[in-house]
């Protein structure tokens, strides 16, 4: 068991013939992910890596291959359209890796997808990894091993750091979900905590947060009230100055809200053990 993606995931890659899309398609295929189709408008009929058929539209790809998930690697200005297209084609799970999507676009996308009951991961995220089953995104496959720790994170390489530290002491992950660092995105911490709470394979959970917004605070509230499994956390940005956007569009302390301190305190009050630095997470999981 795992959450969101596994061996039964039938994946479409939107933007499969682009540089990024092609590279990560190769990586995902090498990992064993079941990529059933690619989409690049105007390139329908071609093949990628000799085994993935390319279609002009998600609708055609989905109808032909019965795909149940789609990952998006198209440039930021086209990513909203790609998400609408996947949703309208009836894809229930969309993972958008693309960074730099405009926030008003994302508000429209998110509200539209919610109406349709479509689950979105990202944008600006590393995607999903269920070690040993499916890599749906850009998380390097060799830094994590199968296990019983559910990992959810707003950050990319910081997550790799944690997965790698876990692997080094023999701890594996059930599924790692990179939810992305944008202010308006799809799936949030609480969604993932719920899924991990319900997943029999997951015994402990790692939550990697960062400054900005109040999703960590809300997650803490959820943990205090509902979570039956132990949670370990790290919050990045304790040394970040207010008013400066720390790379991620959502990582900014605005009007005194969204500080690392607030988040850490909220999590600690909810019984979460908070690591002082990322590698310490592995220690706290033992």
């Amino acid at each position, binding site marked *: 068991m795992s959450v969101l993606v596994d061996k039964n995931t039938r994946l479409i890659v939107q933007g499969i013939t682009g540089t990024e899309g092609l590279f990560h398609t190769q990586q995902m295929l090498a990992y064993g992910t079941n990529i059933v189709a690619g989409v690049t408008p105007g390139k329908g009929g071609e093949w990628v890596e000799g085994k993935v058929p390319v279609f002009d539209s998600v609708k055609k790809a989905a109808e032909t291959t019965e795909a149940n998930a789609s990952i998006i690697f198209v440039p930021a200005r086209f990513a909203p359209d790609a998400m609408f297209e996947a949703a309208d084609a009836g894809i229930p799970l969309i993972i958008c890796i693309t960074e730099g999507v405009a926030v008003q676009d994302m508000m429209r996308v998110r509200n539209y997808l919610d109406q349709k009951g479509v689950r979105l991961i990202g944008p600006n995220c590393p995607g999903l990894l269920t070690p040993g089953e499916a890599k749906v995104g850009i998380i390097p496959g060799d830094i994590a091993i199968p296990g019983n720790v559910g990992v959810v994170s707003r950050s990319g*390489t910081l997550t790799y750091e944690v997965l790698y530290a876990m692997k080094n002491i023999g701890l594996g992950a059930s599924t790692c979900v990179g939810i992305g660092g944008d202010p308006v995105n799809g799936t949030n911490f609480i969604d993932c905590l719920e899924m991990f709470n319900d997943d029999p394979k997951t015994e402990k959970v790692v939550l990697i947060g960062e400054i900005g917004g109040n999703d960590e605070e809300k997650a803490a509230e959820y943990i205090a009230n509902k979570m039956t499994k132990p949670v370990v956390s790290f919050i990045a940005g304790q040394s970040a100055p207010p008013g400066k956007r720390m*790379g991620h569009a959502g990582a900014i302390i605005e009007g005194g809200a969204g500080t690392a301190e607030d988040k850490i305190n909220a999590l600690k009050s909810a019984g979460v053990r908070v690591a002082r630095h990322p590698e310490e997470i592995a220690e706290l999981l033992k």
Partner: protein
Amino acid sequence: MKLHEYQSKTIFSKYGIPIPKGRVAATAVEAKHIAEELGGRVVIKSQVLVGGRGKAGGIKLAKDPNEAEQLATQILGMEIKGLPVRKVLVDEAASIDQEIYLGITNDRAAKKPVIMASAAGGVDIEEVAATNPEKIIKVHIDPLLGIRDYQTRDIASGIDLPREYWKSFGEIVKGLWQAYSDNDATLAEINPLVISKDKMVALDGKMLIDDNAMFRHPNLNEMRDLDVEAPSEIEARKYGLTFIKLDGDIGCMVNGAGLAMATMDIIKLFGGEPANFLDIGGGAGADKVAAAMRIILSDPNVKAILFNVFGGITRGDEVAKGILAAMKEVKPTVPMVIRLVGTNAEEGRRLLADADMITAETLADAAKKAVAAAQGA
């Protein structure tokens, strides 16, 4: 991207929002001419992209053109919070019967734009929000539907606006919404929106534009004021790097924003002070790494550099080549600590074997070594 008051108000005016008569001036003589044109009393307002201009003496009332010239001279010579005043806005002075706050921003939790208004305008709205949240009316807008007339009335009624102003207030709210929406703003704010002689006027204006949406707005990009950013930050943007200058002495070069923050945090945890936030992004090649290194070393405070690269898309050998290229060019004299893990890390480490660098296995180890190096230097 921040817009100046005069830029924001010009945009608002295009959407039918009444603003005071006035124009921007780059010299005191220009300011005098504008004051002559306007007649009567004028306000001289420094155009800098920071808050607290009034408290810093950057906003003054002039009773005639001569005083306008004199005050403009004074204000144009100022620096406010480190930013030079290069332009002043000369607006006709308005009598003020009531000050209202009106702003639109993104509510990230609700995933919707939110309009906020308060009868207690003119002051720091964040303070009102913190101390008297009930004095702020919030109305969320469905981003697929846009604003509705009835919502403007709900806001007017919520701030107890006298009914004779509901119609003109409604037009202003709709204008502000359209300005926010058409220009991909992350904030569009009028503070204060005043009632002056039975009319509503936007005395001050502020807009923040979503950098990610700039491709749709080449005209706005031309309005960008580079004064607000440190030269190193502008240089970094050219190379697609995200760089923020800080006050410490340990330069950091990291791939990924979250990891970059965590790296700064751990430096601090072990007693050091980071000199910057720097994310070289995913898949950074040698040229990008070299540029990043030059930018870090251009800061004279930097006493050590910590390279923390977790190879995923980014390849360790590429990073190593970048470091070697930059070292040849800038010949750094500060100690450098490097931690390279993940994709092609082995090759990277091999390439750097002969370079004069301190290596580390874990992030904690790397941070400790960097702190020690900076203190020992």
